[in-house]
């Protein structure tokens, strides 16, 4: 993974000093609430319902075991002993003290971490595939490009006060695991067949109040021009994005208003002055970035043999076998698998992880996966490089810590924002809804029979739970002071991205599990052979589901 040198360290250290000073001036009354607001947000600090919330950056979801141990320490010492994985692969603390945040940032800086630009109207953490570097369908590792973008966007002097937040995602594989169609900028790495790599650039995707699938603004940008092209897009947005209404301030609204053709022309005009300038990437810099993401020293294994041994072990212990089937993924290296650690045990808020669990995961990463771990935008964690022969030992340890729920990709693997329990923006609670659904579908045979289903819950329009692109999306809404839930179906975050369609009038919290069950009953009745929920929905449309859910009971 990327390692700081003295330059990176100095930048992060100076940021801590700056924020310590800003906090002091705020507490001394030298900065008003309104002035401190964007300054603290650009350091990840929200003031929430019960306490401040601190969002810590996990660049493209990659963590070392040293960083995990530091996070465990911070969660224990400065918070209530747990942390939360967000849908942007970041880590959130729900109970820090404002006065202690500079100390937390200093602790983070000591392990090459920070909270820079995890909130605010600036360029946020760049996200990518949690299986980067090990996925079989990958053209190239996307992480060097993410790191190049991270450095370019970090403390960028021109783009720190944009009309609204700005999110970039990178995909470098056949299957899109980074939801690039739902980002302000989505970048897809391509090859032209002649050995050159370049990027297709999408712009104006996004969720929130007005969900939009991104449009292609450029079919091919040569890799050395990536940063100048991004800079040109941001410059058009910074000057022309709406600032009069925060709900119309995202770049998707600008692209729609201008039309993608006119937007493209505006970007090209800006690009003329930037292209081939000093920000053009050099071969040395691309090689330097790639040098941090090399193949780990895999053992030379006989894949056929380890697979056979694993099959036998799975047959002998079906509970283990089930976990292997649900929570592990094929790997590029013979004899290895990638393991997804479920943070979706019933009764625990989706994405929450305790200090003890973080420490165990650090040990397991050291022992089994080259001392690295990843966070996922589905709010789980991944040990990416585990030998098949070690899976059983790993599984036993995970099970002992409540981290082996075999539900990855199934309906109980709920993606969920912190909601009204924590977040001052939320209209409604989301965690209790997630827990009620998890409890309803606890029967594993039923769960697996339903097949892969992505269920996403957001407590408000801001859509942190990405409800628009869930196969089943649940949105908390406020109706005259009471909490209701609107349900949408058929969203998708794949390359065939789709925004879910709203089923109809919203429901009270206690009705949500019943409604979800009715939707799934309809699916089971309607499905043909091996059809998934999404395939059935795409074939039959929303009407049959609507009829079933809103049918009068006799």
């Amino acid at each position, binding site marked *: 993974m990327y390692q700081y040198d003295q330059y990176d360290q100095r930048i992060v250290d100076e940021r801590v000093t*700056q924020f310590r000073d800003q906090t002091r001036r705020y507490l001394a009354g030298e900065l008003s609430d309104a002035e401190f607001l*964007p300054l603290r947000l650009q350091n990840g600090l929200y003031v929430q319902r019960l306490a401040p919330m601190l969002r810590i950056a996990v660049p493209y979801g990659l963590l070392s075991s040293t960083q995990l141990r530091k996070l465990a320490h911070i969660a224990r010492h400065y918070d209530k002993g747990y942390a939360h994985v967000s849908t942007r692969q970041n880590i959130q603390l729900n109970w820090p003290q404002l006065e202690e945040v500079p100390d937390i940032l200093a602790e983070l800086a000591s392990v090459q971490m920070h909270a820079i630009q995890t909130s605010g109207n600036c360029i946020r953490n760049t996200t990518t595939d949690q299986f980067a570097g090990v996925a079989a369908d990958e053209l190239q590792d996307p992480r060097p490009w993410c790191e190049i973008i991270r450095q370019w966007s*970090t403390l960028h*002097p*021109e783009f720190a006060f944009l009309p609204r937040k700005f999110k970039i995602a990178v995909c470098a594989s056949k299957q899109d695991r980074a939801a690039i169609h739902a980002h302000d900028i989505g970048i897809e790495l391509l090859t032209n067949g002649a050995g050159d790599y370049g990027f297709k650039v999408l712009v104006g995707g996004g969720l929130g109040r007005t969900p939009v699938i991104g449009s292609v603004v450029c079919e091919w940008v040569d890799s050395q021009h990536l940063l100048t092209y991004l800079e040109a897009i941001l410059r058009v947005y*910074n000057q022309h994005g709406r600032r009069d209404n925060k709900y119309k301030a995202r770049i998707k609204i600008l692209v729609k208003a201008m039309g993608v053709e006119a937007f493209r022309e505006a970007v090209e005009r800006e690009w003329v002055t930037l292209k081939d300038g000093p920000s053009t990437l050099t071969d040395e810099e691309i090689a330097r970035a790639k040098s941090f993401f090399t193949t780990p020293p895999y053992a030379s294994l006989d894949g056929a043999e380890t697979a056979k041994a694993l099959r036998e072990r799975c047959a002998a212990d079906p509970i283990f076998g089930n976990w292997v089937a649900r929570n592990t993924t094929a790997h590029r290296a013979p004899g290895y698998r990638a393991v997804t650690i479920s943070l979706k045990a019933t009764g625990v808020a989706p994405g929450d992880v305790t200090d003890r669990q973080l420490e165990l995961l650090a040990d397991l990463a050291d022992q089994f996966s080259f001392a690295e771990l990843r966070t996922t935008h589905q709010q789980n964690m991944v040990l990416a490089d585990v030998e098949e022969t070690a899976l059983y030992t790993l599984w036993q340890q995970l099970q002992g810590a409540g981290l082996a729920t075999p539900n990855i990709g199934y309906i109980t693997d709920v993606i969920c924002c912190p909601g009204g329990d924590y977040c001052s923006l939320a209209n409604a609670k989301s965690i209790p809804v997630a827990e009620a659904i998890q409890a309803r579908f606890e029967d594993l045979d039923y769960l697996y029979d339903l097949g892969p289903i992505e269920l996403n819950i957001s407590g408000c329009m801001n859509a942190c739970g990405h409800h628009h692109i869930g196969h089943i999306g649940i949105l908390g809404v406020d109706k005259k002071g009471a909490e209701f839930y609107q349900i949408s179906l058929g969203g998708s975050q794949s390359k065939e991205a789709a925004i879910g369609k709203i089923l109809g009038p919203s429901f009270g919290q206690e009705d949500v599990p019943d409604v979800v069950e009715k939707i799934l009953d309809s699916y089971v009745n309607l499905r043909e052979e091996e059809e998934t929920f999404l395939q059935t929905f795409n074939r039959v449309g929303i009407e049959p589901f609507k009829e079933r859910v809103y049918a009068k009971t006799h």
Partner: protein
Amino acid sequence: MPRLIKQGQITSDTWLPPAADAPAAPDSHLPNLSQWLSLADKTGSAVQLEPGDGIAELLPALDTIHLIAVSFPLFTDGRGFSYARELREHGYRGELRAVGAFLPDQMHYLRRCGFDAFQFSDESRLEEGLRQLDIFSEHYQGAIDEPRPLFRRRN
């Protein structure tokens, strides 16, 4: 006389903010864009841009303008950062002055984008502004102060 930061020092000059609703700018008031456009002779002229003005209309006269003030009525409106950078990238070499409600905490970014003079609406912020001018000693990306990104300078 209004006080401001110039060349890393607190100083003062005689320019006053634009007076709107006049066809031509009164003496010692900075012309706004439309007043400036109506000047017959732009040699040695000054002008103040507001958010939304853009820089396109200044481009033909960049060699002759003496002072461009960029207004920040709200510190959260970041359009002026792009205006400054674009003006410098198009070769403007005169004084580039940030004026208005920006924060001392934004001084460093403003300077990186090409501003060399800073005039707070609240003059009590001048000292704090000076202190914050060089709050970072290293940067990843190129800007006007140092066009080479860190990756061209690392060793």
